[in-house]
């Protein structure tokens, strides 16, 4: 399984730069009111989409399926990589915030609430995406990804408006720590269910079908 995770991240190679570029352009050069939440969520989705597109383009699911790994491990590696994408996305968002605050002397928000929302939206997105990915096959999932990305962006923009009105002074969402902590935990539980569902689907599917 470690080799599969390593493979996924290695194959992305310079595609990481696109995520960095996105954060610089939309988080630093053209910063808007929606930037903070967008930065906490979209880089992870971008990286996951790049990884899926690379696999689709080269039909490498067949290559992976010929390697000495179990189908469960292939699915597990995909889900493990998500944590890397999310962590990298949040780190890049935090870096953009630091540049804005300390280099460009701008007033910006970057708090526990943003991390909470970033985690929640990402986990929800991935929970939906991967069962479709394994159910419809890679091509079908490409359509799904664009629909879900559109919905995610609309949700993120909506969240940004709501958040501005519901922050408390400590960076948590109004209503206390529970409202900041529970959504990511809930979406993580959904991710676990999604993983079990993806394994069940993938076990019965022909590769690259």
């Amino acid at each position, binding site marked *: 399984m470690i*080799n599969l995770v*390593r*493979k996924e991240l*290695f*194959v992305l*190679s310079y595609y990481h730069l696109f995520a960095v570029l996105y954060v610089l352009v939309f988080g630093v050069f053209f910063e808007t009111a929606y930037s903070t939440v967008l930065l906490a969520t979209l880089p992870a989705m971008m990286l996951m989409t790049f990884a899926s597109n*690379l696999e689709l*383009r*080269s*039909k*490498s*699911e*067949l*290559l992976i*399926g*010929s*390697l*000495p*790994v*179990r*189908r469960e*491990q292939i699915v597990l590696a995909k889900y493990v990589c998500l944590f890397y994408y999310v962590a990298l996305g949040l780190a890049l968002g935090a870096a953009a915030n630091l540049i804005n605050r300390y280099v460009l002397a701008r007033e910006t928000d970057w708090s526990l609430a943003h991390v909470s929302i970033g985690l929640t939206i990402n986990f929800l997105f991935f929970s939906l995406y991967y069962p479709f990915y394994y159910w419809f096959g890679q091509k079908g999932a490409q359509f799904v990804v664009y629909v879900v990305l559109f919905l995610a962006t609309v949700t993120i923009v909506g969240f940004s408006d709501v958040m501005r009105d519901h922050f408390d002074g400590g960076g948590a969402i109004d209503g206390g720590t529970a409202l900041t902590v529970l959504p990511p935990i809930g979406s993580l539980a959904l991710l676990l269910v999604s993983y079990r569902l993806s394994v069940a689907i993938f*076990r*019965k*599917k*022909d*590769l*690259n079908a």
Partner: protein
Amino acid sequence: MNVIEVRGLAKQYSRFAMKDVSLDIKQGFITGLIGPNGAGKSTLIRMLMGMTVPGAGEIRIFGQPMPRSEDAIRQRIGFVSEECNYYEHLTIAAMKRVIAPFYRHWDEKRFNEYLHRFELHPKAKIRSLSKGMKMKLSLCFALSHRAELLIMDEPTAGLDPVFRRELLDILADLMLDEGRSILFSTHITTDLDRVADYIVFLHQGKVVFNESRERVFEKYALVKASPELLDRDVRGLFVGIRETAVGFEGLTERRDEAVRLFGNEAVVERPTLEDIMFFTAKGGRRHD
């Protein structure tokens, strides 16, 4: 001893069905899998590799059940696919860094030797390789982890005749030196004339025969004779007949009976594998 055992394998697609396929592949031999396009060769190979899920049936490789022991089984298999599904944006060296860690017995020295032999440069990008070069690369990977069984789906497709001959020599050498087992599908049947010990013939998702090459040629005969000899009873002797205005050619799997029946009135020849494939696939169509 069998390296692969297949029992009652079935797979249903909308336009193709494989039904009740059972066969054994002998350990230590080269087995050729032949059949016309759409016969089910790739479907069978993908099921053996665990890439396609069978509708029914059982597969055992090295005595272990597939897919229950899929990782352990694939550790001992070198796989070459007609489609080389490597990441196009990577170099050969980078692709090797992706694949090598999966194999416990990866042999770096041997991999580099094969790259050199096949004139592949480690810094070349996969997307810059021709189909033939990708196939060579695929062979480099398949031959570099001391696989006991090579499974190859149309490995000679897209290769020039020089390299095709070289590949067949490599396979023959592997069998001499290391006693591996090889299963490879092809519709270039002359490749099998050179190296195959056993032939499996698939047609319309069913096994027509699975025999040693010698036995196949002992059994089958190509009969050429004038059309007046072709009555209803005689037709029943043939698997497939090709009729023209001046005579007919027919393939029979009862060579001895054909020799006895026609005597000196017909020419009875040893068919090629291509003849066997052609007549079995086409049946008794008339060609004027």
